[in-house]
């Protein structure tokens, strides 16, 4: 008998199997939300889903590929503007535009990646911000979309989504839920794959990863452009909910990057669960403290500092290091074969 015949490799655990049953029940409940939740709740849930998607994508980029971008608002805004442009100029149905925007976002990110991948560390971060500013200034030049003051989605296009207001809200809600599930599932399946193994190795030690046959540039490039495409699709859905776009709102570093970084850092960078936990904490704080004005932002900063000092790997990282629990198991474990 050899080690190979005596052992098997497993990726799931009892906890993860129980978590997947709970997740399915939760998903069914959330899918049915239009029948049990109020209009304001649906809008809030939709916003939460889109932030979960943005946070998972930023975490994928920074937490796994080590690409700390502070310019992801470039793709949120790009996606939003593409939605308006495709719908207004080309008559594309807004829902059908979303997958097209994924492709456009991926394509536009290729020259961006080729340019900014020449930069390292802090220079890379600043470079991404500069690119986002270039995107914002370019959008402000498009007079057909309102230039610097922006524009609203025409009524006939809004009605094309659904004839009634509630129908439109339900469609926007389900689209947001679908994109959040798509993003989480994509990240999870990628991390369980052969390429995901490479990405985790890069996260831990680039020198060793390269010496073990991993093409670091190509892996990071792939992660960057796919993340950009999906972030653009999320951006399109954000402005489909808002029905209005302007350069300042679309390319806001605060809304689409700073808050997202806060979410990932407090939730747990480099874990799939972290961004989800972080989004829930962020919205709990926002919904209970937002009326306090600037004090609310001070409290957010305080929470971030406390978490970074007491649990540097985030809330989920703290739980995982003490319990070993993985709700989305990517770790491969060696177990004795039972006959």
């Amino acid at each position, binding site marked *: 008998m050899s*080690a*190979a015949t005596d*052992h098997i490799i497993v990726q799931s655990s009892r906890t993860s199997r129980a978590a997947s049953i709970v997740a399915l029940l939760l998903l069914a409940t959330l899918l049915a939300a239009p029948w049990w939740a109020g209009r304001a709740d649906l809008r809030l849930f939709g916003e939460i889903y889109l932030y979960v998607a943005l946070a998972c994508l930023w975490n994928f980029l920074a937490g796994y590929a080590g690409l700390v971008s502070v310019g992801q608002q470039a793709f949120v805004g790009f996606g939003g503007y593409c939605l308006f442009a495709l719908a207004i100029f080309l008559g594309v149905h807004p829902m059908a535009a979303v997958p097209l925007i994924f492709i456009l976002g991926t394509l536009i990110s290729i020259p961006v990646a080729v340019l900014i991948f020449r930069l390292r560390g802090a220079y890379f971060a600043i470079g991404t911000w500069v690119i986002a500013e270039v995107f914002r200034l370019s959008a402000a030049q498009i007079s057909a979309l309102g230039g610097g003051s922006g524009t609203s989605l025409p009524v006939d296009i809004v009605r094309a989504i659904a004839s009634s207001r509630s129908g439109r809200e339900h469609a926007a809600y389900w689209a947001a839920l679908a994109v959040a599930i798509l993003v989480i599932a994509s990240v999870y399946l990628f991390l369980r794959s052969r390429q995901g193994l490479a990405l985790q190795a890069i996260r831990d*030690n680039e020198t060793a990863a*390269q010496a073990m*046959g*991993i093409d670091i540039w190509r892996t990071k490039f792939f992660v960057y452009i796919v993340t950009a495409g999906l972030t653009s699709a999320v951006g399109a859905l954000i402005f489909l909910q808002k029905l209005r776009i302007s350069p300042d709102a679309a390319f806001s570093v605060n809304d689409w990057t700073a808050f997202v970084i806060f979410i990932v850092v407090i939730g747990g960078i480099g874990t799939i669960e972290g961004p989800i936990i972080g989004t829930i904490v962020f919205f709990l704080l926002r919904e209970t403290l937002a009326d306090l004005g600037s004090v609310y932002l001070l409290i957010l900063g305080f929470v971030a500092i406390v978490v970074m000092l007491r649990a540097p790997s985030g809330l989920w990282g703290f739980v995982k290091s003490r319990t070993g629990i993985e709700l989305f198991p990517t770790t*491969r474990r060696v177990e004795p074969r039972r006959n």
Partner: protein
Amino acid sequence: MSIVLKLQDVSKAFGAITVSDELSYELQSGEALGVIGPNGAGKTSMFNLITGALTPDSGSIWFNGTDITGMSAAKRCRSGIARSFQIPQPFGAMTVFENALVAATHGAGLTKSEANEQCLSALEQTGLLPKANILAGNLTLLERKRLELTRALCAKPKLLLLDEIAGGLTEKECHSLVDTIKDIRSTGISIIWIEHIVHALLAVVDRLVVIDFGRKIAEGEPKAIMDSKQVKEIYMGIEVDV
């Protein structure tokens, strides 16, 4: 026997510090070559040049008849050159098994089932199988060194570069390591081994190269090299009265 590796006048300098000075030698297929020299002689830099972590300023490096001087580090690994690091470089947040799996899937390009089999057998060979599910960041220094060897083996190399892998081992562990390296060598893998534990090195290698200030100062049969006055003076740092 064919030539697996050939270094031809390879030079590399960082400002005024020369880490490789027109270094040339050849390694035959299945041969085990030992490399010795004082600290800072340029031994690890030589491995960095062979594996592509450093690019030479001049000269060329040939592997199995192909000029690999401009080839990326990842491609060199995939073509059959694997190394261990003097200071272990584990993937700290991944398990021991996953560390090995990275090398088997990306370095050796094995399929899922082949890679699993290769990793389990390499872990068994290096005695790390009981630690397979432990995060590599939690291993002791000695276990990390074994993991370095395991990963290099999982990449299924034609040329294995070992960098001070016996440092810090007890006498018993050192004997066990020598046996493991002899086993590896018996499979036909060519080996270059940098080591300060000379008795371990001499138990395995066919030939020794001595490096100082990036230059090759001696090359030949191990006993003759270790007995030479020049090596004793430069490597041991002592004056020898003949």
